[in-house]
């Protein structure tokens, strides 16, 4: 057994996290910053954090992930990291020439108490930041929140820096995207244009973390939300913010700063959440829903009705990030499945009420847990107590899946052992079909592999 020391008997833990269902803020900040064109993320701390975050993102995407670091040593830890950041910025602009440097802090620089805006101000007054270039700070201590919080904080930093109000509204919406894959961000843009609307999607990692092989490396790939687009967000009609945990702060900031009102929606994962997204586009874009979109929806509903018998009543365990889990759980319940265990390491009191709303009383036995010690060890113990038919989560789930012989669908961050997540969307109606394809694939493969020969079916 891979996780041979895990048993069904729970022991009350107050201090020890085992097999976490979260990681730390800066990796989220780094991912978010990569979704801005010409932007180089910079990790203000010791170089180890940056190395780990780049490695994690690289393994997930199998793409270059560039970021610089302040490379703290003992001295910087004692005297503060100002000198490191000043030299760092000068070197970055001279050697790597980005348009924007997005600086995020680490546990170390936060514990020291480095004041990023002050240091950046100093760098500017000392001429270390060339004219027309931008440096943006985000505070991302990992002893608060999780990687999701880091994404939210970086997104907020972009929004408080770039958008401007000219006084003249322009015919566009803002879409603040929660943490999804490049393919999903591409799909959001496609849906918006199918609806006949203009929108700025921020951030946008498509064409950044799914770039083509051309034989020529580009340090700053073609994709990413551009500076003029971000600036124009202050004049948009309305903001649709997708994902409570990742985008509410940024949306609020934009509203306060530029008086652009916002609506919170879930990420459009599955049928109901996509419906709500389309309704929001329809309402705030003042358009009617074209047949094309209705047809896509119809195809998703069609697939669910066709395959309902294989989904109905199946017990599912999920772990991952709140903004994914809420709509995903609702989708599974919409399909007649039973999401019985849901775990997220990301803290936040609103998670349980959101989950309860998503489940809407359909799975009374559901166990939901988030925050400290809401980890995969806990989830595994629940599974040992009463098994499930399906497990959904990041790659680390494969250890539980193999030990317990549970069909497993990879979803979330990080996915280190399969491809596809960055190329095929799982948002929107089409994304819903892809999710079902994956779920049905593993469920039915297990039937095919384990049913008695006499019960082996050709047509399913």
């Amino acid at each position: 057994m891979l996780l041979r020391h895990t048993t069904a008997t729970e022991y009350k833990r107050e201090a020890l996290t085992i097999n976490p269902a979260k990681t730390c803020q800066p990796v989220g900040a780094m991912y978010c910053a990569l979704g801005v064109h010409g932007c180089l993320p910079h990790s203000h701390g010791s170089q180890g954090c940056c190395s780990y975050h780049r490695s994690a993102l690289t393994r997930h995407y199998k793409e270059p992930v560039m970021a610089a670091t302040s490379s703290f040593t003992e001295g910087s830890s004692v005297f503060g990291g100002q000198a490191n950041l000043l030299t760092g910025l000068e070197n970055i602009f001279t050697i790597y020439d980005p348009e924007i440097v997005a600086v995020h802090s680490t546990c170390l620089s936060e514990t020291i108490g480095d004041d990023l805006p002050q240091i950046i101000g100093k760098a500017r007054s000392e001429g270390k930041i060339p004219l027309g270039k931008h440096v943006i700070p985000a505070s991302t201590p990992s002893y608060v929140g999780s990687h999701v919080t880091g994404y939210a904080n970086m997104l907020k930093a972009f929004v408080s820096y770039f958008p401007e109000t000219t006084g003249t509204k322009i015919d566009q919406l803002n879409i603040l995207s929660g943490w999804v894959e490049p393919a999903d961000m591409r799909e959001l843009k496609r849906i918006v244009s199918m609806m006949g609307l203009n929108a700025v999607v921020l951030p946008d990692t498509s064409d950044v973390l799914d770039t083509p092989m051309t034989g020529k490396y580009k340090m700053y790939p073609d994709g990413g939300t551009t500076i003029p687009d971000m600036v124009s967000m202050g004049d948009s009609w309305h903001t649709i913010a997708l994902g409570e945990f990742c985008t509410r702060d940024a949306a609020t900031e934009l509203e306060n700063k530029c008086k652009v009102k916002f609506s919170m929606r879930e990420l459009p994962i599955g049928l109901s959440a996509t419906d709500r997204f389309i309704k929001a586009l329809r309402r705030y874009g003042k358009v009617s829903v074209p047949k094309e979109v209705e047809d896509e929806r119809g195809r998703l509903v069609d697939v669910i009705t066709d395959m309902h018998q294989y989904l109905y009543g199946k017990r599912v365990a999920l772990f991952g990030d709140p903004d994914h889990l809420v709509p995903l759980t609702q989708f599974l319940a919409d399909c007649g499945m039973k999401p019985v265990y849901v775990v997220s390491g990301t803290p936040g009191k609103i998670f349980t009420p959101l989950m309860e709303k998503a489940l809407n009383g359909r799975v009374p036995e559901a166990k939901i847990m988030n925050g400290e010690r809401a980890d995969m060890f806990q989830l595994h113990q629940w599974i040992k107590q009463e098994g499930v038919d399906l497990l959904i989560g990041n790659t680390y789930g494969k250890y539980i899946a193999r030990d317990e012989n549970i069909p497993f669908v990879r979803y979330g961050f990080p996915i280190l052992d399969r491809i596809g997540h960055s190329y095929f969307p799982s948002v929107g109606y089409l994304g819903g079909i892809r999710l079902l394809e994956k779920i049905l694939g593993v469920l039915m493969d297990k039937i095919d592999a384990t049913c008695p020969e006499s019960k082996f079916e050709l047509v399913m």
Partner: protein
Amino acid sequence: MDKMKNIKTELPDPSALKEEILKRYPRKIAKKREKSIVINDPDAIPEVQANVRTIPGIITQRGCTYAGCKGVILGPSRDIVNIVHGPIGCSFYAWLTRRNQTQPPTPDSPNFMTYCFSTDMQDSNIVFGGEQKLRQAIKEAYELFHPYSISVFSTCPVGLIGDDIHAACREMKAELGINIFGFSCEGYKGVSQSAGHHIANNRVFTDVVGRKTDKGRLGKFQVNLMGEYNIGGDAFVIEKYFKEMGITLLASFSGNSTIESYEYSQDADVNMVMCHRSINYIAEMMEKKYGIPWFKVNFIGANSSAKSLRKLAEYFGDKELIEKTELLIEREMARVKAVADRVRPKVEGKRAMLFVGGSRAHHYQELFNELGIETLSAGYEFGHRDDYEGRHVIPTIKVDADSRNIEELTVVKSETLFKPELQDKKLLLEQKGFKFEHYEGMMPTMKKNSLVIDDINHWETEKIIEMMKPDLFCAGIKEKYVVQKHGIPLKQLHSYDYGGPYAGFEGAINFYLEMERMLACDIWKMVDAPWKHEPSIMGSMVYE
């Protein structure tokens, strides 16, 4: 610069390339990097600046002290609960990402390597201190798992808020009655992973080695293998050879190992050091305290594997052992040769670059030599001058503030466990030319004018690729796709790209086949769309 082809003993002078690299840097940086970019001359080895701080803002390959301590040295042992004291990330990223394989003897034997333990510090712990939480976490780990040992690793914020992890470990050790020890391996402690190796070596030496003294002899020839981490199953291959030869492997530091085995590792007759950088400290200390001699081995490459096994047999000088060893080598070499003969013509003359780790950038050149692949440029991520120029330069290495940070233990001879007979044996063998405590380093084996670059960064990587156009690049995950987007295959030498084993004869064969796959692969020729080189279709949109 034109593609350099078919050069036999000497490469073209890369001074122009060096200039080109340095030109981009601010003056101060250029001055610093200049000393780490060196044009090799095997007959008069130039000095390389190594093991110095990475410049802020530079996109480096390097990781931190914690990564070297927890990730590299302690990570591959299976019977210990490793609790990372700090915020969640540090522990999360070191969770199973290094591919250390392990084989517990039975389905019930302990194996915690698939688990990730953290105190997940919150802001209140940062403000009010995390020691109490750490004690509680140790207790919970004990109650849940009853492991053989527990260890604790400090991450950056811990050092700053002043938690005394060693006091916590001592108290819990007294309370719970198992061995519990801690590592002050905060990421900022050194300039790279290397500091973490040293910190790990120190604590394993003081708190683990020598705890068990009643083991008695387990075999006629008892050895420890050091600095072999069982990436991709390398250690399994070497263990197989030892078994066939009748060698008893007491402890492996640390691939496929248990902490329990370290506790009686002082019973070994000799220590073999594979990765000199990460483990030479403990080999040195064990010699001082227990009298165990050490010598350098290398199981990467068929020839060096044969050489290393022969050296081991020669050390014991036992006739039967020598015969068995020769038989093994003869049999395996025949297999190796068959594959090499087939692969070599396909890859001969190709040109490689290696920038990785603290020994692999050297060791893997052996495999390239066996295939006739030429090394244009190489360097370490966290090596020291001795790993480049050879151990004889150690007395001349300047101790700077960063190195002074890492404790040098004062080791005294053990009254009861020191084995003078091993030292006598060493003397005798030395007189016959057997080399102990010897490592020649990377540069004497590299060609004249090959470019040696320590702690290479992103800019330099891009530049040498652009100007030298290698056929193959070896580095790690962060570099992998950058290089491949240039249209050049990259072989990861930390994780082996999830392949391997590459150690021993079997490993050499695997590596040859891997080179055949990577270098003769058609897909790189298909990068450009077929219409790319055809004249574009002009003319009007009128149907004819």
